[in-house]
């Protein structure tokens, strides 16, 4: 397992997931809820992909106990937890915009 590559993939997928969650909020703000839902789904798929890589690192470490923790890895975990939070908030905000705009 290439730890640099795995960390970068986590950053890329978590980052892409976060970015699409933010775009979903922007779409909902404009009233385009079809687009918002689509972006939320894409966001979720990217973040799930990042979690799979993240778990891969954890399982690898549990198995072989040879993972040398680097700043890049910590940074990747940071990106992933940030993306998780933004995704959860985006789901709520899209729902909130729906209720506000249809009230």
């Amino acid at each position, binding site marked *: 397992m290439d730890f640099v590559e795995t960390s970068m993939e986590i950053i*890329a997928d978590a980052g*892409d997931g976060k970015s699409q969650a933010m775009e979903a909020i922007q779409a909902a703000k404009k009233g385009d809820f079809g687009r918002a839902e689509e972006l939320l789904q894409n966001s979720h798929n990217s973040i799930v992909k990042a979690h799979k890589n993240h778990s891969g690192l954890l399982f690898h470490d549990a198995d072989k106990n040879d993972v040398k923790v680097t700043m890049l890895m910590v940074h990747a975990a940071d990106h992933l937890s940030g993306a998780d939070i933004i995704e959860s908030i985006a789901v709520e905000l899209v729902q909130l915009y729906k209720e506000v705009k249809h009230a």
Partner: protein
Amino acid sequence: MRKIVLVCENGASTGMVMKRMQKYADDNKISVKIEAHPYAELGELIADADYVLLGPQIGYKKDETLQKYPELAKKIDVIRPMDFGMLNGEKILKETIASIEKNA
């Protein structure tokens, strides 16, 4: 010399991509300077940048960036998560140079 500016939230992970791009350029004698910076500094950097690349994590900022800096139209792209994750400096550099030459 051409200058390509990479930006993400704090310039950390794009720094990795920047190094791979610069290495490919140096190894292949391509005259280009690649820099990685935090998004907050973008305003000071665009004057002498030939192209700006946003990290995938701030792709959602492309529209507001263009509204704020209309001069970046045709000079800005979001790095694809796949290329970013694989640290594919060669592909990102070649595509960016192609875009710069298309605009020239």
